Structures are given as structure tokens and as C-alpha cells.
């Protein structure tokens, strides 16, 4: 199945891409999406302890399941205000 991955701020700079589509096995979770990205872009690994994630623009957990067509976002620590 395919999911759209969204990356922001320094995660986007590190990968050079803010949006990419990735193929995943059935019954994947957010964690699986992340692990695939880290294999492609090892520089992302350092962000894992401070990361947030979202599925279809709702905050999610690494264990949250993903489905065909979902938008999965990875968010470095926020700095609004």
C-alpha cells in the first residue's frame, strides 16, 4: 500500500523533500514508515527521541496503524509563538 509522508522544518531540510510517497507492507504502523525513512536518510535517526507524528493531520503514536492513502507526518520539536 502507499502512504504520503510529510516532513517539516529540519526533517525536510535533511531529506531535501517535504512530501514523498512510499510503498509499505500491509498492517504497517507509523513506526514502520519511520524506520523505512531512516534507512533511506540515516541523518534522521537522531530525531527519534524528540519526534512527534500525525496520521491524516491528527496527532498519533508510533504504534498507530496506517492504511492505504494515509498522510503520515513527522514533526521535529515545535517552536511556534
Amino acid at each position, binding site marked *: 500500500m502507499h502512504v504520503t509522508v*510529510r516532513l*517539516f*522544518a*529540519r526533517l525536510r*531540510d535533511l531529506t531535501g523533500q517535504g512530501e514523498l510517497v512510499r510503498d509499505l507492507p500491509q498492517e504497517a504502523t507509523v513506526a514502520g514508515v519511520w524506520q523505512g525513512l531512516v534507512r533511506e536518510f540515516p541523518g534522521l535517526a537522531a530525531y527519534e527521541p*524528540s*519526534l*512527534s507524528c*500525525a496520521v491524516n*493531520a*491528527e*496527532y498519533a503514536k508510533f504504534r498507530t496503524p496506517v492504511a492505504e492513502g494515509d498522510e503520515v*507526518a513527522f*514533526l*521535529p*520539536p*515545535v*517552536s*511556534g*509563538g
Partner: protein
Amino acid sequence: MRTAITGSPLDVADLTKLIEAAGHGAVVAFVGLVRDHNQGRHVTHLVYEAYEPLAVKALDRIVSEAQAEWPGVQLALHHRIGRLDVGEASVAIAAASPHRADAFVAARYAIERVKQIVPIWKHEYFDGGDSWIEGATADPDNAEARERALRVACT
């Protein structure tokens, strides 16, 4: 709209109009401005980026949290994105309530929560370079962070 992520300049007077009511005795407004220095660096400008659909939901969540905590309070909450020069407003909050105590604490709580849970990132451009600012790991369910925001708001 009481909550918004916008590329346009913020006007706190417009926000205040959204929440006015005849029973209100107090309005507290907070505006965050781009400073000309940060951590000893001379800042030239900032660029804010947001995950917009989630950021709007996070602003709505902050309004709901505040109204649950202080039932008489009305709140409006806008955050700007894109390029901001020194002196421009990045965030504007207006809180209205029958009595002043609630308006003060709700406005303060709201800005603390913006910094905790709204997916917005600040890219700072300073003399000699630029850098992403990274603050809090966003987790709206983190009860400890929410307690901290309430404590700072002096409830």
C-alpha cells in the same frame, strides 16, 4: 475565525472583535513579536512554517481546553507563517471574560500551550547564518506539560 494560521499580518483588534460580548468586563491580548536579537545573535528575520491542518486543530484544542478550565472565557488565537521581519507579530491571542483574572490566566495559558503543541517551526536568519529553532516535543496528551502551562498561567 477564532483560530487561524495565516500568511497575512495579524491584527489583535480584529481578534478582539471576534470575542466581544456585553457581559465581558475584561479583555487581555497577547502579541508575540519578532525580536532583533536572540541568544546573542542579531536577527534579521524569521520564516515560520506550519503543518497547517494539524496546527489549526491544535489551536482549536487550546481554545477548548481553556474554555473547559475557565467556562466564562472566550478566546481567539491566530498564528502567522511565512517571512516575518523584526517587530512583526508572529502570534496574537485575545481572551475576554466577565472578570479580569480569567482573561489573564487564559491568555497566558494559551501562549504556553501554543509553544507546546502547535506544529509550527521558526527558522531564524541572523547575521552570519540561519538555524531552525526547536523547542518542545509536541504531545497534546502530555499531562505534565499541560500542568506546567497551568502553573505558569498562575491558576
